[in-house]
């Protein structure tokens, strides 16, 4: 029996198919520990070895990683939600009800998406907080901090655009309050300083561009949907790529020099 299993294992792991997928054995050798990271597309963002303190939870609080994880959760659950949701004033609210009562695990999906998004807002603040407290924005990491601030802004915008999509009282009024600010934009809003002087009206100022109308309405829903599901996630992914790449290029996680 033993011999048989060994033989089966051998013929599997020595086959061309196996070898084409796994380039090294699993024995615990230093070489394999390097290869485990280098040969893996998901892990290769990491260095193969890191300074001891950089692996300590009490140093990084894992917050950047958790933020990224929560983003992935929203991306996966978000795509699933898109199967059931139609961004029009006629259907949006009903689709929420549909998710709640008819779609198997629909409510769970929606909850998971919402709480992961709220969680991401919290963790991104905590991550920034930790980066500030360890002074990790100091040279040579200045630019990565700037990239981080962009990520923070996009995270909030993602959350905000998503807030409108259920199309209930909570969402349209929260977004109304938020976007009303745009009327007061200096120069570009019809209630902002020097706005009227420059010919700004409710139907041509920056708020109008944002909402696709003079109030939060069906065009706003579509606009926010497109921003929420396409533009902002792509934007965030691109900047995350830059962020992670910069961590490596700036010499890995910061530490006492």
């Amino acid at each position, binding site marked *: 029996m033993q011999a048989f299993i060994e033989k089966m294992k051998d013929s599997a792991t020595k086959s061309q198919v196996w070898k084409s997928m796994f380039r090294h054995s699993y024995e615990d050798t230093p070489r394999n*520990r390097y290869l485990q*990271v280098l040969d893996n597309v998901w892990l290769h963002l990491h*260095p*193969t070895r*890191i*300074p*001891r303190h950089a*692996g300590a*939870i009490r140093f990084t*609080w*894992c917050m950047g*990683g958790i933020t990224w*994880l929560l983003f992935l*959760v929203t991306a996966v659950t978000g795509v699933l939600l898109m199967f059931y949701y139609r961004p029009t004033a006629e259907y949006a*609210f009903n689709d*929420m009800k549909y998710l*709640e009562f008819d779609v198997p695990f629909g409510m*769970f999906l*929606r*909850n998971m998406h919402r*709480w992961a998004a*709220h*969680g991401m*807002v*919290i963790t991104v603040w*905590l991550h*920034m907080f930790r980066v*500030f*407290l*360890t*002074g*990790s*924005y*100091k*040279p040579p*990491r200045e630019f990565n*901090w*700037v990239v981080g*601030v962009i990520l923070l*802004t996009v995270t909030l915008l993602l*959350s*905000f655009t998503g807030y409108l999509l259920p199309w*209930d*009282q*909570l*969402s349209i*009024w*929260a977004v109304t*309050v*938020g976007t009303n*600010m745009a*009327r*007061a*934009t*200096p120069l570009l809003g019809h*209630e902002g*300083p*020097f706005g009227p002087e420059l010919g700004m009206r409710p139907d041509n100022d920056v708020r109008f561009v944002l909402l696709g109308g003079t109030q939060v309405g069906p065009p706003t829903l579509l606009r926010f949907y497109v921003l929420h599901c396409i533009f902002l996630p792509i934007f965030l992914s691109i900047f995350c790529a830059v962020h992670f790449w910069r961590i490596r290029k700036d010499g890995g996680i910061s*530490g*006492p020099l």
Partner: protein
Amino acid sequence: MENLILILSKPDNLPIAMMVVLLGYYTLLWWRQARKNDGIISDGRYSELQDENNDRIFVWPYLVRIEFLAAILVLLILTVWSVALDAPLEHPANPSKTPNPSKAPWYFLGLQEMLVYFDPWIAGVIFPTLIIVGLMAIPYIDKNPKGNGYYTWMERKFALSTFLFGFFVLWVALIFVGTFLRGPGWNFFAPWEAWDPHKVVAMVNVDLHQYFGIRSSVVAFLFGGFIVTAYFCLGIVYYYWKKNTDFIKTMGAARFGVMAFLFLCMMGLPIKMLLRWAFNIKYVWVTPWFNI
């Protein structure tokens, strides 16, 4: 009290409670590590902060395993949270029925709370822009080379206290006020008060120039302009006063100018809050185009 419980039990507000707890925990964690490191540094044993012999660990398994466990833990919490608490869904959108109060999502309530003290073009546009730009500027303003890559307090007192004040008081605390203490008409309600939509608050606010008996709008314009300009000139005064200190010398005029401007803008908020609470001051500077 009922109101407080009602707001607290809104599922969208749970994150605020979680955030406050986490912030408390991590602030303590920072403080303990900072004090420990500060002790080591003031004993002149800086090298003890560094990993001994530049010690390195393998990412596989020592980091990957932490990431894996952290991911499982987070997903577990998220699952429990999603099973236990349903995302809110109120009545269908109705543009002709405005709820009172209408609140922005909780993470923007700090900005909404600023509207009490500043007009929308400042609270809703200029301040958010300055927050983003100001945050981005931090690494280029802070020339202090110390405290890079470890927790400390001693070596970065000014930077840390400014950031902590901005984050805790001007951001998190305002979110808290906006969420829990603001009721109909955005009036202030203590936690034990009932939210009365008919609460009448006397409009006793006056503009600063009225305090000084200035009637003419031209004089008021010049007066307010003078006050605001003088406020920002404090930066210049400080610059010439401390010109020969190392702090100013390493910063240089341009960098110091940017920092002073951002700092004074930030402090404008608590100052205006105090003016409002203590003297019922509405505007400091009134012009035909904008008010500050």
